């Protein structure tokens, strides 16, 4: 049982190591899939909006990572 849990944990970690990034991407893709066709049916902009949303999520995550790192460095200079 333990080894099955360990294997499942390893497989999970292939896709997720930062839960907030994974959650944001899944929520954005799901939300875009439901909302965009209703807001702008058959629009050529739906796919580029999906792309830009994902890129924004990645950039925000990097910004938070850098912010946290800077805060830690400020607290512990060494």
């Amino acid at each position: 049982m333990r080894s099955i849990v360990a294997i499942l944990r390893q497989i999970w970690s292939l896709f997720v190591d930062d839960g907030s990034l994974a959650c944001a991407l899944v929520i954005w893709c799901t939300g875009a899939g439901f909302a965009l066709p209703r807001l702008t049916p058959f629009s050529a902009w739906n796919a580029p909006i999906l792309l830009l949303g994902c890129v924004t999520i990645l950039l925000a995550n990097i910004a938070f990572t850098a912010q946290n790192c800077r805060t830690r460095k400020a607290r512990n200079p060494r």
Partner: protein
Amino acid sequence: MIALLGPLLGQIPIGILQLAVGLLLLLFGMRWLRKAIPRTAGVIPLHDEVAVFTSETAMLRAIGSATALAFDPIALLTTFKAVVLEGTEVVFIVLAIGTGGNMLVPASFGAAAAGVIVIALGLALHRPLSRVPENILKFAVGILISGFGLFWVGEGLVFQWPGHNLVLVAIFMLLLAASLIAARLAGQMIADGGELA
């Protein structure tokens, strides 16, 4: 695994498969980018492959000397575990790209060719591939996998990509540009304490 799972995945409706595989590829690729970008920026340290190799070798030698066997089962288990884990990633990528684009055979050949090259490099260098810039590889693979993932999520949601398959090049370029900008901004933020816009 590829021979077993490939045809089974072919039975699933293509839209659902593209959405599911695209989402998994997106998570997989973004996870790599999320690590590669801060490393490029110096926000988190690069992997010191030589140090990891030295400490792992020392640990295995210590255990090996205790068992004093010519055939080292600990080393065998360690390498087996590492290769199985990395191999599972390869299987996933081959299945995702192969079944999503209906190109399981070319994707398998590509993975096999990459495997041969890595084995040859391993034999030739006889050391960890520390001379290969690991972070650049992760950067490139992260962009490619994220790009394919995004493309298939869009296809699975029945969104129309402008330029159809050719849009992949634009997606890769945008991801590359965004990643490089993110790395630069994050690096500056750490260096001079400025805020990201």
